[in-house]
């Protein structure tokens, strides 16, 4: 067994273990930290496959940004775990059963596919390819997949706006300028000309023409 093979098995074991930990941890913080571990391991695996850029991006973006976001939210919400139910409960049985079945199916599918479609390359072709994976990826991204890239950018923007709009809390005490209203203002909004009877005695004015005091 070569070192790369050894590495693969080790990483795969860590990955699966941390994945199991993610879904089974009682404390969400543990789960989040296990997920970080899973991301790290996955990044390592990708790098062994020659996808250096993606591996690094995974570490930077996910471990650095997304998972931190998760942890922030976790801290912010201060979720108290009140659930005292045992970890293994009855509803786990169908879940595990269907998981096992699913795994069996997929494994059979893969093994079957390998058997019938012998054209699958058995060894990693990446071993021979040039090392500037990042450059090649960049070329492909900005040439062939430019529009898709732009669309993904728009998607990110929309996601960002959505997240802000959803979580933004309008403060009742905040004071702010409404520029559009300031510009759209007209004279009548600001000024009211009130005609007052000039030299009438007070009693007459109130008694006889109360409605004339109103504006015109």
């Amino acid at each position, binding site marked *: 067994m070569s070192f790369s093979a050894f590495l693969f098995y080790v990483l795969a074991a860590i990955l699966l273990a941390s994945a199991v930990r993610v879904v089974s941890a009682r404390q969400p913080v543990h789960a989040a930290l296990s997920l970080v571990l899973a991301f790290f391991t996955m990044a390592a695996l990708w790098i062994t496959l020659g*996808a250096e850029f993606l591996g690094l*991006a995974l570490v930077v973006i996910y471990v650095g940004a997304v998972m931190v976001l998760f942890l922030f939210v976790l801290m912010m919400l201060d*979720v108290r775990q009140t659930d005292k139910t045992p970890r293994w409960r009855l509803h786990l049985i169908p879940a595990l059963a269907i998981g096992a079945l699913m795994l069996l199916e997929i494994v059979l599918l893969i093994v079957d596919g390998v058997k019938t479609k012998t054209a699958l390359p058995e060894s*990693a072709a990446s071993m021979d390819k040039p090392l500037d994976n990042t450059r090649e990826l960049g070329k492909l991204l900005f040439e062939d997949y430019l529009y898709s890239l732009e669309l993904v950018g728009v998607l990110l923007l929309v996601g960002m706006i959505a997240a802000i709009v959803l*979580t933004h809390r309008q403060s009742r005490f905040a004071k702010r300028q409404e520029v559009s209203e300031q510009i759209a203002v007209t004279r009548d909004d600001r000024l009211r000309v009130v005609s007052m009877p000039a030299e009438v005695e007070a009693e007459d004015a109130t008694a006889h023409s109360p409605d004339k005091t109103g504006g015109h």
Partner: protein
Amino acid sequence: MPGLEPTLTHYLLLAAALLVISLVGIIANRRNVLVLLMAIELVLLSANLNFVAFSAYYNDLSGQVMTMFVLATAAVESAVGLALLILLFRRRGNIAVQTLDVMKG
């Protein structure tokens, strides 16, 4: 059966195992929406592993481009998901999955 040397099949099997683990997590998780979101990240990750593995074995970088897109989408998804989570928490005071039954028929 595949040999000990890691081949494409190994990676695919690994991705499958990861997928199944995360699906079981989604189904079995009844306490925390946050963990649900994490499990979804794992699902996407397993898909990404397949993309990268195929990309490597077929020597075609398109797969890695797809992975990038998936990563971006996953980021958006977790951002919006977390925002919704925060809203949910503000409304109800907890984020336990089993209390979310307003859609009950």
